[in-house]
């Protein structure tokens, strides 16, 4: 049996504190050469066949690193990647200190009964950023409001949105793939945040206004909605 590879990452992670644990990866916080950093460690999954696990884990790490650079080149905010260890599948990246997820922000805003129109600016910004991303033919693959961060102090107008978690991302120019990307977001959005149909529509309107290729994507989105939940090839 393969040795416990998650231990090989231990020396690298020595100075860091475990922050979150997901099914896919553990997130640590620490310092990288003096800077506040987040380490995303995709640990070995022992329920998978070892060779398959290695391939999948490596692919996800690589895709995430590549997408980070492609997004930055297009002017989309994503955390700066400082260092990638392709042997242990650790990504060292910028820690957005004090940021909150869009999910938490929406939840808080709704709970406090605050003016829900303030979320309109956020919806506009989300639509714009996603339009930019799709225009670059980057498909995120896992769009949810938990995968969008608001930089510290930017909850008000002029929201500074940062996209994260590009492990399932890939390149595609097809409106079908972009439509599915948006469908995933719609499902996640509406199930996490009740009574936000009009907010999401505002997001779509902003998306349409920001991208010339949008009409084809929206058309596909409508088709997908009618079909029901579409499964992408990766399980």
């Amino acid at each position, binding site marked *: 049996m393969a040795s416990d590879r998650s231990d090989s990452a231990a020396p690298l992670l020595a100075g860091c504190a475990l922050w979150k644990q997901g099914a896919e990866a553990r997130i640590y916080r620490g310092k990288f050469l*003096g800077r506040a950093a987040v380490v995303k460690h995709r640990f070995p999954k022992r329920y998978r066949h070892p060779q398959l696990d290695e391939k999948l884990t490596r692919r996800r790490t690589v895709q995430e690193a590549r997408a980070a650079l492609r997004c930055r080149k*297009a*002017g989309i905010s994503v955390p700066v990647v400082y260092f990638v260890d392709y042997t242990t599948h650790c990504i060292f990246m910028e820690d957005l200190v004090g940021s909150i997820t869009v999910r938490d922000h929406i939840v808080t805003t709704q709970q406090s009964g605050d003016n829900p129109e303030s979320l309109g600016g956020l919806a506009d910004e989300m639509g714009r950023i996603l339009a930019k991303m799709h225009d670059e033919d980057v498909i995120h693959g896992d769009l949810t409001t938990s995968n969008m961060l608001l930089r510290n102090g930017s909850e008000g107008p002029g929201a500074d949105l940062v996209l994260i978690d590009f492990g399932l991302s890939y390149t595609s120019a097809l409106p079908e793939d972009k439509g599915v990307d948006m469908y995933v977001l719609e499902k996640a959005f509406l199930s996490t945040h009740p009574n936000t149909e009009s907010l999401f529509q505002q997001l779509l309107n902003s998306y349409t206004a920001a991208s010339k290729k949008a009409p084809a994507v929206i058309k596909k989105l409508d088709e997908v909605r009618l079909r029901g939940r579409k499964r992408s090839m990766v399980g």
Partner: protein
Amino acid sequence: HRRLELFPEYSVTQMLFTDVKNAAALRKSAMEGQINGALINPAMLVDPFQALVAANKAVHLQKAGKMKTRSLLSEIIFNLSPTNNISEAFRRFGMSDGDGAVHVVTVHPREDMSDVDTILARVEGRQVPVGEISTFTDVPGIKKLYKVTPSEEKCGSLLEAVVCRMAVKDVV
């Protein structure tokens, strides 16, 4: 001087010199292994952090037995480059015989400053604080070489653009 968190037995020391008179001799000494320092063209550096990142990656790859070049020092220079072409990296980022300024990066055991002392003794030039590197930086040259897009500059600093490319270039 900075300790590498990931490799705590090492320290990285950076030194910046101007009015250098013996560039050619220094290069020769480095190539013959008499100086333990990577001699870098400071025009290609935005910030000492950039050199630190290059050194960190070099040490990591050396430990993993996966360096692309033949020595730790040449690996540091190679890591600075946005491309995977080794000779191009040396040409653009390494010091040239005619240079008047040089940025030296050395990786040494934590408490042992002997390599640093050797370098200080050998360079015929004036040492300036490493924080002043920006006075040497060729910003337009770097933007061109790293192909930094205008939209990219809106979402981050030039240093971030450079560091990101250094981290990702093996798979891009």
